[in-house]
């Protein structure tokens, strides 16, 4: 099993886990309006399916919320 930090929480993912599966896991199935940073680097949507997650990596899945002036 691989453990990554997904939006701040440790999370076990399968060996073959990719960003796409992580995004699905977090509850944004279609991924519309969502963006992902892997260890602080932005991963374009086109690369989600092919970007595997490695042990200890930090995955941030963000979207727009009310806020800011």
């Amino acid at each position, binding site marked *: 099993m691989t453990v990554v930090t997904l939006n701040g929480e440790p999370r076990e993912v399968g060996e073959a886990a990719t960003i796409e599966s992580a995004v699905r896991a977090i*509850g944004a199935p279609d991924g519309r309006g969502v*963006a992902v940073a892997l260890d602080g680097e932005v991963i374009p949507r086109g690369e989600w399916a092919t970007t595997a997650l490695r042990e200890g990596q930090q995955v941030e899945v963000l979207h*727009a*919320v009310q806020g800011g*002036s």
Partner: protein
Amino acid sequence: MTSFEIAGRALESRLILGTGGFRNLQVMAEAARESGAELATVAMRRVDATARGSLVEVLKEAGLEVLPNTAGCFTAREAVTTARLAREALATDWVKLEVIGDDRTLLPDPAELLVAAEGLVADGFTVLPYTNDDPILARRLEDLGCAAVMPLGSPIGSGMGINNAYNLRLIVEQAGVPVILDAGVGTASDAALAMEEGCDAVLLASAISRAADPPAMARAMRKAIEAGHEAREAGRIPRRTYARASSPEEGMAELAPDAT
């Protein structure tokens, strides 16, 4: 009211809406409609499985486009990455750049702000930086290629209005890009004053979202911004040290004969 342009894009409304602080999306949508705004700023946060926010859709229905901000970032690096994520998520290369230097005042950090602005401009963003009211910093941001400058009137959410109208005037005098007052507005006259001082627009979040009646305040703010802009265009009377009679002195009757 005459429109103005940011980065070649014409905007009819001179009120930009911040989405923070609204009780719920419905009140936000109603206020957004009353405000007449075309742009609404949004923040980037972690997807939360529990709360599926249809924020962007709600704004779209109300006729507003989203302008992502980098609220909450304390370093140039965080801000730049946040802007890139927003570009991915929202398919816009416009960003309202915020790099905060202090938790208590939420004032911008001038050095980090310059670094972030330079990086984002180089990366092809249309950058609208939230800045303090320092005319020199405003010019540096413009020199770096920012599409507008967004000086504060006073700290975010403080409702103190415009603490230093003199600096705001200097910024307006020298600016070659639109000046958008950002932060500090508490009530309608603050927004009108900003426009009278020559700002091209005003960004309003807490002043509307945390008012007792947000849609009513949105309507008031819309009128105040139009009033301030139109008053500037209409050419106000000068300030005078003494009075100036508005009634004719000739033709005055003599009504106390015996008193003479």
